């Protein structure tokens, strides 16, 4: 009786069939001991190599003779591990975020919040005072805080009341009392606190229920990065910026909600997307702007209502940062491919008009522009106008002083000459000079040591400045900070450990 195993030895071996016959026995045709079921592995020679020690099973596997086998490592495609990339807009949001509170900083117990009259009170000079919560929201809505300022180091935003602050806010109050327009350019050295001065003016305005219209960066209007369109029936042709206007209306609405809801329209505005009858709160009017198409007509109506004569209106503060950008030829083009002057852009024109004195507000107000030393195109006319006005102001002040009897300063300024145009230079702009002919100039200079001490005590109380504040340290930091340039002092004492 044939054993199935012996028949199997006649079958052509293949990989599918495990055959338990050693190579030598199979080639000789000898029925092996496998028939009897004895272990065949015993016949295989001893080897430590796994292929050999497998014994008979190796035959079936290796009966195909392949080519020479080489060991090649397959090259893996190089994949750079990048992690999750940020979503569109995420990086910018991170870069532009404003942090106004630091829970790790100590709360300053003696810090008092600003009231409506605090910023114009002379007794508050050289004191650090907190910005109330409500005003913080308003300032944030109008983008008064900047990423370059050190708000994120302290428990809550606070400002140093300086001599210049009191001067500025008093001028604002005087203008509002007399229903006049304060036209002021804030200038000064790099990181001297020009934008902060603007912020303080805005704080004062918010606290006193003014309407604040703030343009955080003039360059956003003039560097051709927002949409523009011609305004029909204007001569010379003006241009509106609907997308920016929408953004501005929303900021105005958010920042001035309280005042706008208490102010009512005088006329009806049937041409807007939503009919606005007379005696509607201005807030409702501002709410009409939902899309950029309607933004410009809404802004025009809002502005017409805010400046309407003969009805109760709040004072208005127009503020703009980065003044040099609005005093140049913009990057926009006419259809004929000529560059458009910034003052032909309607929003900028509104500010230029206010600076030039062509704006009459029912309850007075102020237009304040701050120059910038870090992001400013060269603007010779602005520089000239500012320096000229500064000298003229000094001469006026000295002549006043002479009139009142003290003649000591007269001799000092009598020798000063009002700067004139360089006759060999062509880059002046007549329109800019006409606008700035009669503005007031406020130079934000260095702080004195009293103010320096006040601000350093605040830093120390917040736990951000870790040494004793005495005359020596104050003088040291004051000197290190370019003789009292506030931003430089901040760099020298607060930001020196920044990694």
């Amino acid at each position: 009786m044939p054993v199935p195993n012996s028949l199997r030895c006649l079958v052509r071996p293949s990989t599918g069939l495990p055959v338990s016959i050693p190579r030598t026995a199979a080639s000789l045709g000898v029925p092996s001991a496998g028939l009897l079921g004895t272990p065949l592995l015993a016949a295989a020679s001893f080897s430590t190599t796994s292929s050999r020690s497998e014994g008979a099973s190796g035959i079936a596997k290796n009966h195909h003779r392949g080519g020479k086998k080489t060991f090649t490592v397959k090259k893996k495609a190089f994949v750079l591990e990048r992690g999750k990339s940020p979503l569109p807009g995420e990086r910018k949001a991170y870069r532009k975020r404003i942090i106004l509170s630091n829970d790790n900083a100590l709360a300053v117990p003696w810090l008092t919040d600003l009231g409506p009259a605090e910023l114009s009170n002379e007794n508050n000079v050289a004191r650090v005072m907190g910005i109330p919560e409500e005003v913080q929201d308003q300032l944030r809505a109008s983008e008064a805080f900047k990423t370059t300022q050190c708000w994120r180091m302290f428990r809550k935003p606070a400002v140093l009341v300086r001599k210049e602050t009191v001067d500025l806010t008093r001028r604002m109050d005087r203008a509002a009392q007399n229903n006049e327009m304060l036209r002021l350019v804030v200038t000064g050295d790099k990181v001297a606190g020009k934008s902060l001065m603007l912020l303080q003016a805005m704080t004062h305005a918010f606290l006193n229920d003014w309407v604040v219209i703030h343009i955080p960066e003039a360059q956003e209007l003039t560097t051709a990065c927002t949409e523009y369109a011609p305004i029909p029936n204007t001569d010379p042709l003006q241009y509106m910026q609907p997308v920016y206007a929408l953004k501005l209306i929303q900021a105005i609405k958010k920042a001035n909600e309280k005042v706008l809801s208490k102010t009512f329209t005088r006329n009806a505005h049937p041409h807007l997307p939503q009919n606005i009858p007379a005696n509607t709160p201005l807030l409702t009017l501002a709410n009409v702007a939902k899309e950029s198409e309607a933004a410009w007509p809404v802004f025009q109506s809002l502005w017409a209502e805010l400046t309407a004569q003969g009805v109760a209106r709040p004072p208005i503060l127009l503020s703009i940062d980065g003044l040099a950008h609005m005093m140049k030829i913009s990057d926009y083009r006419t259809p004929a491919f000529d560059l458009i002057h910034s003052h032909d852009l309607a929003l900028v024109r509104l500010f230029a008009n206010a600076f030039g004195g062509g704006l009459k507000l029912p309850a007075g107000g102020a237009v304040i522009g701050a120059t910038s030393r870090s992001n400013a195109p060269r603007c010779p006319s602005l520089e000239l106008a500012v320096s000229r006005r500064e000298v003229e102001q000094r001469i006026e002040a000295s002549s006043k002083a002479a009139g009142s009897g003290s003649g000591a300063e007269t001799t000092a300024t009598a020798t000063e000459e009002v700067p004139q145009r360089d006759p060999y230079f062509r880059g002046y702009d007549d329109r800019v000079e006409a606008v700035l002919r009669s503005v007031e100039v406020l130079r934000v200079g260095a702080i004195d040591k009293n103010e320096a001490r006040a601000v350093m005590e605040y830093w120390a109380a917040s736990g951000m400045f870790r040494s004793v504040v005495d005359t020596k340290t104050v003088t040291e930091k004051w000197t290190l900070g370019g003789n009292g340039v506030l931003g430089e002092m901040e760099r020298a004492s607060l930001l020196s450990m920044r990694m």
Partner: protein
Amino acid sequence: MVFIFGVNFGEHKLVKKALERFYSLGPQKSARILARHYIHPRAKVGSLQPKTVTALTAELSTMVLESDARKLVVDNIKRLRDMNSYRGRRHAMNLPVRGQNTRNQIENARKLNRVERAG
């Protein structure tokens, strides 16, 4: 996606770059087209009004673009060749046309200077 002159552009593409996609429109011409339609240089295709897109397409359809513009180039070279001018002959020989040396570095001339120029 926005169709300008029969080509589909993504929303986030700059209008200027979208225009420069068409043969014969370079930085100068595209800047002028933008100015003519009151489009600021940093505008994206997605932000265009439908009527602006129509106007752009209308303007582009009046211009010599793409295959017409290529044909114009070829015709100009052909004219030079037909009048048997030096420039025409140099084009025909795939050699530099404007007096460059030919000892070496004339790969681009060999590639491009032909009577039936590709583009």
